[in-house]
């Protein structure tokens, strides 16, 4: 018997998640599912909590002393906020790319080798070389840097730096990649390259991308979540959200009536 319809596999689920910074509530009761082979886009006016919510998915909010997260977030059915969850393991499985490219002031090679080294993924030097090459190839950067792997990562152009950061995240073989406005500091050509890269990586990793660029959300994602004032207003197929939104607020936002 052949299946023409593949059942989506749930990668991450968030249920009734709220986040407060001290007494200020930044995310209020949000529930979202992220499928194995999908790209999910988070859109919404700035300050509505997109980054905050994204950072709950790999517990980066732990680094903010005042942040408190409630609700339930699961990765492959396992509660990531439970006491037996190892944050080190979690962040190796859920990688992150930041708004501003932040390569370490080390060589290109060392930037990519950073994760494999701390997680002990490579035994011999040859293994590490292979991981570095594979990651740089997947990030579409190999041909541009293969002759200068020992140059500093900070000497690359902005777009190359961001792809280096993606390669760095890929190097530990994550299952999910979170991207917080990865193109907002880049020019249109570099942006196009990153979008192309997201297309290529789709299926291999589940991806969540925050963007303030509506066309970008429409181009790269299969699902879109619209946040407003800390709440999830609407979540659904990207095509539906952009052509036929259910909520008035979503429609106002995507037609540019405010934001």
């Amino acid at each position: 018997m052949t299946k023409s319809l593949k059942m989506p596999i749930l990668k991450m689920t968030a249920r009734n998640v709220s986040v407060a910074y001290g007494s200020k509530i930044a995310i209020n009761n949000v529930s979202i599912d992220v499928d194995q082979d999908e790209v999910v886009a988070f859109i919404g006016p700035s300050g509505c909590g997109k980054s905050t919510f994204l950072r709950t998915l790999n517990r980066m909010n732990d680094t903010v002393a005042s942040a408190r997260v409630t609700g339930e977030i699961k990765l492959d059915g396992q509660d990531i906020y439970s006491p037996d969850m190892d944050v080190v393991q979690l962040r190796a499985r859920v990688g992150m790319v930041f708004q501003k490219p932040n390569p370490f002031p080390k060589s290109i090679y060392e930037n990519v080798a950073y994760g494999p080294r701390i997680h002990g993924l490579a035994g011999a030097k040859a293994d590490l070389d292979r991981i570095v090459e594979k990651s740089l190839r997947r990030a579409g950067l190999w041909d541009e840097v293969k002759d200068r792997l020992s140059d500093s990562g900070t000497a690359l152009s902005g777009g190359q730096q961001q792809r280096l950061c993606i390669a760095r995240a890929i190097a530990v073989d994550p299952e999910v990649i979170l991207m917080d406005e990865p193109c907002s500091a880049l020019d249109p050509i570099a942006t196009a390259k990153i979008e192309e890269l997201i297309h290529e990586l789709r299926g291999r990793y589940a991806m969540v991308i925050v963007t303030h660029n509506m066309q970008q959300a429409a181009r790269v994602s299969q699902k879109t979540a619209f946040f407003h004032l800390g709440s999830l207003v609407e979540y659904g197929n990207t095509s539906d959200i952009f052509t036929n939104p259910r909520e008035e607020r979503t429609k106002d936002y995507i037609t540019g009536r405010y934001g």
Partner: protein
Amino acid sequence: MSAIALLFLVLGLGLIGWLTARVRATRFRAGSTVRFSSLPSHHGWFVALWTAVPPLIFLVIWSMTSPALVTDTVLSTPAAMQLPPPGFDRASILSEARSLAEGRSFGAFHGLSRTLAPSYAAAQTRYDWIATALALLLAFAGGAFAFTRVKPGFGARTQVERVVMLMLLGASLIAILTTVGIVASLLYESARFFHVVPITDFLFGTHWSPQVIDGRDPGASLGAVPLFWGTFFIGAVIAMIVAIPFGLMSAIYLTQYAAPTTRKWMKPILEMLAGVPTVVYGYFAALTVAPAVRDFAVSIGISWASSESALAAGLVMGIMIIPFVSSMADDSIAAVPSSMRDGSLAMGATSSETIRRVLLPAALPGVVGGVLLAVSRAIGETMIVVMAASGVATLTLNPFASTTTVTKQIVDLLTGEAEFDSPKTLAAFALGLTLFVVTLLLNIVALRVVKRYREAYE
């Protein structure tokens, strides 16, 4: 007229200039609808500065040159023929005569000074009148010149601005000129020293005993290598072995682990340590640490251990330097963008891995620069070694043995009983010059490193 009275007179004239110019400027503004570039007070300041500043400059120069002129006049009187030839007696008679003439003393040791006192007083009075007349002339000339320029279209504002700029420039030049003067005198005295002692003997000789100098070959006992080694050993080795790890670790704790409340009280306390007078550290070194170090050495079988050991001085110096290293390292670590830290944490690195693999390497140039500055401070530090280090120059690697430093030797050489131009005393200047050159180079290199580092993140 006394100097103070003259000063107030000049300032008073300046005030009058200010008031009249203001009145004049207010008057021509009143009748006009045009916008002027300068306010009445700018015109006032313009005239006031032209009135007061030239005589003030004149008075400063005058006060430096006139005593010599007065003395010359006195020397040309017939009574001065009886003065002894130039030397100590002559100088003391002249200064006694001057005190009598100025009414600062009433009794005289030398009879001749009584004879000279009236001509001193006369000459003094004459030159005072000349000074007053010249100062007033300058004040009126300057004031009048400036007053004629107070016209509607005149940009007094920019002129005043320029004068302010010149005064600030002058203030900053004073510090620089003083340094230049100090260096020049160091160079001059050192040159005299190197005239007597070959520079190679001084820089490469390994025997230092300034108490017994052979007049025919002074260089043989003025070889400074043991001092250089002692300075390096105490200031750059022992002190840094203490200061670098503790300073660095406290900086890491304060920037990465401490809760904001902890940091709020801990950092000022640490910085307060830098303000403790070094003589207090000297007591601590000499009275507490040095005996303890010796007792410890004896207990582990080094019976000859010195109570003026390099270790005691170096340890305390290291403690003194901790806040310095800590605050430089703190700044460097804090200057690493937090996105580096986030990037590493998001890769699954722990805090200590992040510090070791990302923050410290990124902060390293800044930390190195800070350490170099700390070394330059440590080798110039004097009080601790004067109190706790030995006066005997030995070339040793043993931290329990006694060693001496350049600064300690400078103090010993200059506080001893010696004529001012003996090789022994002059050696102090040569040591001072060497220390100056070395710390200067260290500072230049350190500031370069730190600057390059700052630029990397801006």
